[in-house]
């Protein structure tokens, strides 16, 4: 017998998939919001394809953030990279004060309209939480564990791969989860510079004054963020169970 929380998650996933695949079935729900004979369901594109490209953009950007942020986090916690630590922290947190809209707008003259400016903005935004958590995770590995690993004759590389990273993994995953959730929402802004995604639905609603569209885009994005958040949290719990040291 599955737990009620699992059932709730499955129901949310089912609802999202049903809405994206057969949106017309939901027309009666949204009809009261579409004033003056406007279409109640977004009709200028396929919602399923938009959701897929939305997710693809976020995941691609996140993959880039993970590779760079984790590599940078490892680098600045090694003996040779410590002098870069204060500066890289300052840079990454300064980057966070940049509004996403500004990053998007400034990337357009460099790379043109479409997915690319969105990828750049999301990539930059995803860095901070992952980097910060990688650094904290690696720096808080208990010194006794590290000593024991050295005592067993592990090389620095072996220690990193089979002791430090597994111990830091729950924190790193939490950083990834944060940046994924933030970016699912931020990616909707990409549609202001013509990226394919669920933001398109919201913008179409704002332009034609159709609240039904705005609500559809917003709810689909929100539901996607909640489900992704839950999925990574489940992964985190699994890994924590394996890497528990008491």
């Amino acid at each position: 017998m599955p737990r009620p929380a699992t059932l709730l998650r499955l129901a949310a996933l089912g609802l999202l998939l049903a809405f994206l695949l057969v949106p017309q079935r939901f027309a009666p729900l949204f009809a009261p919001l579409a004033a003056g004979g406007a279409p109640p369901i977004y009709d200028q594109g396929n919602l399923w394809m938009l959701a897929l490209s939305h997710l693809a953009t976020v995941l691609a950007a996140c993959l880039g953030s993970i590779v760079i942020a984790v590599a940078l986090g490892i680098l600045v916690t090694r003996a040779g990279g410590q002098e870069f630590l204060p500066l890289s922290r300052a840079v990454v947190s300064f980057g966070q004060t940049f509004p996403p809209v500004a990053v998007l707008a400034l990337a357009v003259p460099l790379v043109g309209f479409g997915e690319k400016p969105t990828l750049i903005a999301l990539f930059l935004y995803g860095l901070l939480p992952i980097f910060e958590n990688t650094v904290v995770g690696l720096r808080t590995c208990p010194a006794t564990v590290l000593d024991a690993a050295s005592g067993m004759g592990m090389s620095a590389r072996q220690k990193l791969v089979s002791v430090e990273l597994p111990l830091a993994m729950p924190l790193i995953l939490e950083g990834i989860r944060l940046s994924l959730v933030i970016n699912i929402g931020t990616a909707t802004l990409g549609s202001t510079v013509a990226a394919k995604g669920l933001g398109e639905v919201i913008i179409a609603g704002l332009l034609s004054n159709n609240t039904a569209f705005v609500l559809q885009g917003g709810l689909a994005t929100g539901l996607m963020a909640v489900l992704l958040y839950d999925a990574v949290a489940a992964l985190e719990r699994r890994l924590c169970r394996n890497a528990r040291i008491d």
Partner: protein
Amino acid sequence: MSTPGFSLPRPASAQQSAALPRVDRLGALLTLLGAAGLFLLPFVTFKANRILPGDPRGLAQVLPVWATCGCWATLAAVAAVVLFAVNAPLRLAAALAGIVVTGTALAAAANALTPAHNLIVRVAAGAGFWLLLAALGLLAADAITRMRPGPGTRVLLLAAFLGAVGLTLAQGTFDNVSVMREYAVNAAAFAVAARQHILLSLGSLGAAVIVSLPLGIFCHRVPRLQPGVLSALNIIQTIPSIALFGILMAPLGALAAHVPLAAAVGIRGIGAAPAALALFLYSLLPIVANTVAGLKRVSPATVEAALGMGMTRRQTLMSVELVLALPVVLTGIRIVLVQNIGLVTVAALIGGGGFGTFVFGGIGQAATDLVLLGAIPTVVLAFSAAVLLDALVERLDRVPQ
């Protein structure tokens, strides 16, 4: 987060090369970055008008020989300091000298390329200028971090920086640079946007503080409520900002149509009202969560001591618990303020005003200068807010210990 007593061994290479001066690796990286900006990328771009694509120009093509050589010599001296000196104040001074020279070079290049009384030609800072400025800015940031200034000093440094920039701009040094041209055209709109941007971000923060503090205290007192309240606020955070702005337009529009008083106080379906409400909703979670966390941090023994001294429950809350929780609450407020300043730019999409008006206008007209006119003040505002509140948190956190 830092682990006392956990220090990493110095790299072996540092001990071997005692005879030679050790090259600072961070300095080497920044020097490479700056040199790439200076020699490989255009320092300025020249545009016959504001929308045409730019024609790249290097520093040597624009300035007289003596000025170019002076520039290069100063920057070479900065590089020497960065590569070999460890003294942080000296490195900061070098970085500042570099920034002054780079800025002067930009102003001189813009003046040299602009024919007298010509208001159509645009001279914009090029990729090379921005890269060089970034390298110098990183150098200054690193030097300041190494000096570990206290909260008061950091605020003073910020004030000095803002004052110097403001004075330079007021003197008209950069009037021929394209962003300032764009400012000259939009000066009145800029003042309105600045006021609106600050009002929206501070106003929604103020309203959120008034609601969140009691809500946080209540959640702390009645722990059963905590998961419900926090997850409801969490769900609001997952709704993307443009959607929340849009969703709120409908009920506010209906309110304005049916309640004359609401319309009279300026509530409309589009404009500042849905923006302020959305920002308010986003602001709740960080402040409530941090109030709960801050109150949890106060040890029960302290509360008991206060009660034992004859303080009432209310006095204990006001003069013991809240005071001790203040740094954590302020951290939440800092998150909200920086986040709001960024989000207000999005509010321009629904007519909420603020610097976003220029950013979206710039995207629409493919005018980068206009985008920068909106983006630069937003970043400066967010950065200043972050520095100020960080300093305040540190100052308050230090007192009780």
